[in-house]
């Protein structure tokens, strides 16, 4: 069988990934107006309400009217049975570019990429990117039970643990492979809680010590309560437009120095100990013209701390397998050696469905725009934002990352 598996790998074409054409730059694109419809634990509102609230905040922040927005990127899990298409009629808009991006935790950077290319090509001038979800007793279970065909057929029947069970398996394999300990995961979670205490938008702001983290009840061993994000409702958004337009409107903006995405990377790895970032990080840093050592602000996708460690490794902040060592060498708080998930991340802010894929991006934007108020990181000129989404079966399929810079 090994020869046959090798043949399958060639057919899938991953050997060619290193020779892809270099992507064009994102020159001339402005990223502005991070907005958040505040997260709440539960809501009787539908997903469209949260998305519309984020859209309204974008109009206010950009001093725009609806017809000014001619491009729209939308991500949501609980908007079902609607998509971005139905949402245009719901909110009375007629965009000439419309993207429906069901890529979960990777959707923020992917929306940014789609919007930036639409702006560069002239297909749209001002693109609103929004992601949001509602949360109630029935929405979460319904989503899990029918998340994907593979999950429905081959994961959920085995205990219905949901993402906690899938990530527990990844965490267990990662701990054996690298020597990571619960304390290493706790270092990430505890630092993020300290950051969240300075973020009025975070739902979890009580102090959390390492002892409290370690004493939490088990959910899906080796994962315990504070390794798991809290599902909630909310929405986030931002605008993408030509730099000239942002200047004309006096909107402070950021530049996109580089951005990548990858789907179903390394399909022959039996268990996910690396994500697609490892395939594309050279393209990312090459496009950005800087390296991981030049970045002092990092926002990773932290649905579970182990996934942040895969991002540190995959994006070149440390060597593969050195995630635990990297965590032990750093302080991830606002004034620490590497400020990470500076708003508290999903672990402390909450996971508002698809908005979880925007959370790190809007936080990085606020930091670089100097709008982070009581949690402002000093002198950050660049930020790395990464995303991870969609446990379709046994692993997350979508990865993304972007390097942002001050204008």
């Amino acid at each position, binding site marked *: 069988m090994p020869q*046959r598996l090798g043949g*399958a790998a060639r057919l899938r074409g991953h050997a060619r990934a290193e020779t892809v054409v270099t992507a064009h730059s994102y020159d001339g694109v402005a990223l502005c107006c991070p907005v958040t419809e505040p997260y709440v634990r539960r809501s009787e509102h539908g997903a469209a309400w949260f998305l519309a609230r984020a859209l309204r905040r974008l109009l206010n922040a950009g001093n725009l009217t609806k017809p000014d927005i001619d491009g729209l990127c939308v991500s949501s899990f609980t908007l079902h049975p609607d998509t971005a298409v139905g949402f245009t009629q719901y909110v009375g808009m007629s965009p000439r570019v419309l993207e429906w991006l069901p890529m979960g935790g990777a959707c923020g950077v992917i929306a940014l990429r789609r919007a930036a290319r639409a702006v560069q090509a002239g297909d749209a001038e001002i693109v609103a990117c929004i992601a949001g979800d509602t949360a109630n007793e029935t929405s979460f279970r319904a989503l899990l039970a029918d998340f994907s065909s593979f999950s429905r*057929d081959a*994961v959920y029947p*085995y205990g219905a643990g949901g993402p906690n069970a899938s990530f527990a398996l990844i965490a267990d394999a990662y701990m*054996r492979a690298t020597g990571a300990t619960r304390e290493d995961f706790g270092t990430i979670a505890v630092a993020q809680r300290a950051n969240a205490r300075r973020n009025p938008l975070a739902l979890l702001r009580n102090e959390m010590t390492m002892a409290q983290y370690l004493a939490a009840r088990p959910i899906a061993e080796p994962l315990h309560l504070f390794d798991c994000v809290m599902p909630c409702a909310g929405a986030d958004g931002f605008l993408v437009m030509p730099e000239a337009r942002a200047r004309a409107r006096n909107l402070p903006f950021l530049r996109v120095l580089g951005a990548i995405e990858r789907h179903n990377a390394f399909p022959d790895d039996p*268990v996910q100990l690396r994500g697609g970032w490892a395939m594309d990080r050279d393209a990312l840093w090459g496009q950005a013209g800087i390296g991981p050592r030049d970045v002092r602000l990092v926002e990773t996708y932290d649905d579970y701390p182990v996934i942040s460690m895969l991002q540190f490794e995959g994006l070149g902040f440390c060597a593969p397998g050195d995630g635990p060592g990297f965590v032990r060498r750093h302080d991830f708080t606002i004034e620490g050696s590497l400020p990470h998930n500076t708003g508290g991340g999903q672990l402390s802010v909450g996971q508002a469905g698809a908005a979880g894929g925007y959370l790190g991006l809007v936080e990085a934007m606020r930091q670089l725009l100097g709008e982070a108020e009581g949690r402002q990181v000093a002198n950050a000129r660049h930020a790395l934002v990464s995303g991870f989404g969609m446990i379709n079966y046994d692993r997350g399929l979508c990865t993304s990352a972007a390097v942002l810079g001050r204008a």
Partner: protein
Amino acid sequence: MIRLQRCADCGAAQYPPREVCGACLSDRLASDSADSLPARVLARTRLHHSNEPRFRARLPLTVGLVQFDAGPVAVCFLAETAAQGDAVQVRIGADDLLEAA
């Protein structure tokens, strides 16, 4: 139920089931007829929480990620004693609580 498929054209084994071979895209697929298949435990978890009431009375449940010797990976219930790296036999077609022992 866990069933392994084999492609009649390229011989690849696959799981979860689909209507085409994920390697060569042929639709000439057959289910493996063995009652159990050898596999190795890649990872395990003990579930203390379930989203479905039917599982709650049976918690904690041991669930594993196993790789068949034939290649594909499956999520399945695991004997409590099975540890990472152990060789196991996965019962094919069963849907009771112990598919790998």
